[in-house]
């Protein structure tokens, strides 16, 4: 196998001129963005939403709180792939900061764990996932908790509604450590 693949690799490297980045600085993802997405170049975040301003036949476009263009959309022309369920290894020891973790877990455009989970002290929490109150007392292995936050599909199966925060490039390793440190404060 090895021997067969290597020449092909080299050949394709030669025939594929820098597929990753166009000369104007936009990356492949951006140029692959389907034309029916609601994107406005004048906004730093690109992602726009339509505001129907009163007594007008036109729409006012406003910037969303975050650039969402790197992830797949509902467009029929979207040919990008989603990330498959991804197994990870926890690199201990835990180096998280609970204060930063709190911000990540309770801010809508970042982790927003509070949308689905009861989190001690937070108001307007969700019920879509199990309550995280008293989480620290349960003593779950760090490897398991890291995997659940990185990509819960590996643990609960593909159909879990909990998002894959690490695998989908929402939270990096440090940020997951921060969230874990925050969960550890739930006595």
């Amino acid at each position, binding site marked *: 196998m090895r021997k067969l693949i*290597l020449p092909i*690799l*080299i050949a*394709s*490297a030669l025939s*594929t001129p820098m*597929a*990753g980045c166009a000369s104007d600085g936009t990356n*492949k993802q951006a140029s692959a963005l389907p034309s*029916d*997405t*609601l*994107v406005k170049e004048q906004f730093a975040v690109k*992602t*726009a*939403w*339509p*505001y*129907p*301003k*009163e*007594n*007008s*036949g*036109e*729409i006012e476009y406003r910037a*969303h709180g975050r650039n*969402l*263009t*790197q*992830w*797949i*959309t*509902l*467009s*029929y022309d*979207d*040919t*990008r*792939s*989603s*990330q*498959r369920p991804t197994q990870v290894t926890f690199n201990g020891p835990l180096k998280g900061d609970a204060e930063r973790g709190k911000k990540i877990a309770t801010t*809508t455009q970042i982790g*927003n764990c*509070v*949308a*689905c989970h009861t989190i001690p002290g937070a*108001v307007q*929490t*969700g*019920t*879509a996932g199990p309550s995280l109150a008293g989480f620290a007392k349960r003593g779950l292995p760090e490897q398991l908790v890291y995997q659940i936050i990185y990509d819960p599909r590996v643990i609960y199966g593909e*159909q879990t*509604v909990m*998002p*894959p925060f690490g695998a*989908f*490039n*929402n939270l990096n390793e440090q940020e997951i450590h921060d969230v874990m440190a925050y969960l550890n404060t739930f006595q």
Partner: protein
Amino acid sequence: MRQLTLIAPAAAIAVLLAGNVMAEVPYRQTTPIIDYGAQPHVSDDRKHTGTYEHWKDRAKLNRDRVNSATEQWTTNWKFMDEPYNDTLHGGHEAEDRGRQLFTQLNQNGSFAACLGAKEGDLTGLRANHYPQFNRELGKVVNLEMMIEHCASKQGSTLMHGSYDNSAISVYVATYSNGMPINIDVSQGELKAAFERGKERFHLRTGRLNMGCASCHVSLPGQFLRGQGLTTHYGDAAHWPTYRTKNEMQSLHVRFTECNRNGGTQPLQIGAKPYVDIEVFLNALSNGYPVAVPSARD
């Protein structure tokens, strides 16, 4: 030289991997699709969330249930519509505006005719004429797309999703008030649109890997950030709607909001996947009476 030959294969592997992803059928996840049947009806919710009995008759909504924090979702939030909120809200103002604009555009009757009204009669247009396959445009259209199209023939800009477009849509829909939604998705172009819409509704997208169905099929009865999720049956009969945050929303504007809530880049108003999802949701409202102007939280 040594170093170069070592690096080259590594770079080549990276390029090949990227190339492969593009060439392959893209990896996609869908939430489990429940059996919707060939010609859905709003009462099919009995097999889904089982809440239909509590909201099928708006006049008989149970007040205690409506006021209960834990059971409110079973009333499908229709209590926000008449008769529970018969104070003058933004939806009524939009209806008035819609009547004015319609009268201006329809001075010689061509606007109503363009929308599909027979002899100028708007009765039933909203309940059983849209969404519909339009031969002239060669695609499935909803009422708002036709309002935009017919206005543009007279040089007027009434963008689908704009306030004025929705105002006319609400006004036209008042002629269907009380009439059950009736859309045939058992054959032809609408069946194809329904099937596509069903698939799109269950497709997981965006930064949180969520489909519409993640929230509306898997989670009804649960709360997200304090907001209760209801069944997707009976969702299509009261649009455009006045949102109490003071925004006149067409159904597609609502889709862009739900997309953003689920962390997915929204599409343009009138995009084909949105039209298909609208066909899908309309079929799930078959048999449910049109109610405008409505107000929703």
